[in-house]
């Protein structure tokens, strides 16, 4: 099982067979960020978040597990995603 955290939304357990598709969606997001395409980013990042939420099961509130992958918050903007590539801008404090 793979544990994915979406910042602000908690952790989700995904079957390892889902990880391939997860990476495909993630690559589409990276391309959109590289191209600076806001529409494509919104669509692909939305798909990625939805995939984690729908194909995974939420980790129980009181359970303490380490995540294998971490995704920025669901309402992340293209600019914030860009900062994540450039430095640690998307992770304040």
């Amino acid at each position, binding site marked *: 099982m793979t544990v994915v955290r979406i910042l*602000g939304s908690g952790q989700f357990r995904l079957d390892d067979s889902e990880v391939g598709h997860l990476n495909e969606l993630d690559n589409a997001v990276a391309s959109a960020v590289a191209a600076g395409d806001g529409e494509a980013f919104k669509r692909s990042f939305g798909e990625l978040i939805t995939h984690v939420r729908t194909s995974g099961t939420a980790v129980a509130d009181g359970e303490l597990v380490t995540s294998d992958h971490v995704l920025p918050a669901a309402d992340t903007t293209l600019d914030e995603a860009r900062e994540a590539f450039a430095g640690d801008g998307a992770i304040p404090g």
Partner: protein
Amino acid sequence: MAGLMSRFTTLFKVKANTMLDKAEDPGQTLDYSYQQQLEMLQKVKRGVADVVTAKKRLQLQTAKLEESIVKLDGQARQALAGNREDLARTALERKALIQGQLQGLDTQITALEQQQQNLIDQERRLSAKVESFRTQKEVVKAQYSAAEAQVRIGEATTGLGEEMSDVGIALQRAQDKTEQMQARAAAVNELVDTGAIDDLTAAPGSDLDAQIAALTAGSQVDAEMEKLRAEVGSGAPAPELGQGAESTESAEEAK
């Protein structure tokens, strides 16, 4: 190019690892971490309260703008009734401007409500994780030496470190967004103050108000004149005898 996920995961883990500072004495680490967790929970509670305050402020501004819309609507009607189409048009233009501002405020209030709900969810998760960490901590402390306990509770510690970082980032973002919204609300107030958008709630000062008031006063005078004319015409109110006689006499003399 590496994916967003792997890049973000690396950045996040660096932060999460520094989240739970290590105390000098390994025996104190677990208790020290627990203290930090409780502080973080307090911060989330304050964060929720701050978002609620910001939301209330925007709701007050909304109520104020709604009041001025009702007022402008009334003014437009009055102006039209007084055949002042120009004034009615001005009132309706201002009404449209304020309606635009209102829509912006509605969007912001919805966003703040979403943020409030997210923070409440995060508080619930963090609270449950802190409680479960506390239980695990007590169990390992009873069974193992301090150094061994530290190792045994490793997964719980990193899991909690993640949650703490997650909450910390959410709080920072919530604060940034709230500040942005307050800045925008302040900008609207400033526009109103400097007259770029007339503050139509400031009743006696505005030009439109004065003109409508004059118009209303004018029509009131007209209405009273009409009434007086009608009364005088029908001769209804009997004049005082003496005065009446005098004036009749003088009228006859004049002839």
